[in-house]
């Protein structure tokens, strides 16, 4: 059985002498990322609490722009940072702890692409629908009232 490990992370910026050292290095990095999340979560800087771009008005292309820029238009920057940091953590857990870095390209793609595609699809469908139901409850013509 092959035991060679790829011993560098951050695209070769950080190289390790042994697999054990790499594991501790990744732990330090993951702890650091979690610490950033916790600090941001406790202090919630005001700058990150309101959206940076307001929805663009007018016509088809404005709608298209809103969809393309949706992480900036509809999400608080703080939440966007949390989600990105989570994906970073997930990447290093999968790549270094689960040894995905050392697997063949075919195995890696089979697992990662399938999961990522299906999960993105599911999230899109359900969040879209959730937003629609919110509208049904809350728009001007809403018949259902819950404020009693």
């Amino acid at each position, binding site marked *: 059985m092959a035991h060679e490990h790829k011993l560098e992370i951050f695209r070769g910026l950080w190289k390790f002498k042994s697999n054990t050292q790499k594991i501790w290095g990744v*732990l330090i990095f993951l702890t650091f990322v979690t610490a950033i999340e916790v600090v941001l979560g406790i202090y919630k800087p005001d700058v990150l609490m309101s959206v940076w771009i307001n929805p663009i008005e007018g016509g088809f292309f404005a709608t298209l722009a809103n969809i393309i820029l949706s992480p900036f238009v509809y999400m608080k920057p703080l939440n966007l940072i949390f989600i990105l940091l989570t994906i970073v953590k997930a990447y290093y857990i999968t790549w270094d702890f689960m040894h995905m870095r050392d697997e063949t390209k075919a195995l890696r793609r089979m697992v990662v692409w399938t999961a990522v595609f299906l999960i993105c699809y599911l999230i899109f469908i359900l969040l879209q629908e959730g937003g629609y139901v919110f509208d049904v409850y809350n728009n001007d013509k809403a018949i259902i009232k819950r404020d009693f």
Partner: protein
Amino acid sequence: MDSTVASTGTEGKTWGGGNQPLKASYGKLMMWFFIVSDALTFSGFLAAYGFSRFKFIKEWPIADEVFTHVPFLHGQELPMIYVAFMTFILIMSSVTMVLAVDAGHHMNKAKVTLYMFLTIIGGAIFVGSQAWEWATFIQGDYGAVQTKGGNILQFGEYVNVDGEEKFKRISIDEFAVSIPDVRVEHERSNGLWFREEASLPPYTVNEIYTGLAANDNILVRTQIINDEGEKTVLSREESLKQIRDNGKLVVKGANLHVNEYGTALFADFFFFITGFHGFHVFSGVVINIIIFFNVILGTYERRGSYEMVEKVGLYWHFVDLVWVFVFTFFYLV
């Protein structure tokens, strides 16, 4: 002519058969397939959570106000600290697991044993913390009144903290007035033979209302999140009116029917998602214990390969991976 094609011209190539294109054993590959399908299950739960949250985006509980407790630090509001500790424990046990796998590659039985043991301890601490988190959540702290429409009304007052007006929650225990004419809980010893009912709420709405009317400083806070991202606080008249006209049930703590923190769905998803994850951690610990004993007994030493440690390791890391997402979507976002 043959009715089936036996040679397709791929002989000797990657997928021609007779070799291992993925360079992974059957067991490991199946573990990966299981992990993909389990990842889809968890993402189904989290996406459903997202759906419900988008549906009630204006009234969803704020996690920082719900999970504020840390063991041994009673009465202090420390959001995030304990759950960050739990995250760290789980990542740490992931590290000891991957160290065990590494030691297995070097056929070092003593080290595999040690690291597997540490992994099991980490998992046990996590499950214990999860249980404590549940117990705290179920018990609740301030209590609230549920309205006829199913909304939650909480109580508090404005206090001056360092020259800043802040809304501070008040427990219903502090102001509710006990009125002796309340209904007695039906027990199996009286009335219908062997019939009993679930325990009654600690107070009636009338007791809460009387207490509220007697304390001028107390205001009602609704579920609705205002433009500043905080829950709306009602005026004094409006507070009394809401409790008098709409108050239906006094709620303390959380269960699958009601919860004092806000919309009932929040508690449902909390129990369901963290429960399902906790169950994964629990079964992971059990599997780890089995593998641990196999390591001690020398099963893998005789087999000449510690790949079983690697396979259970994959599962254990996956549990960690899921927690990273649960942590983000339940406690941070």
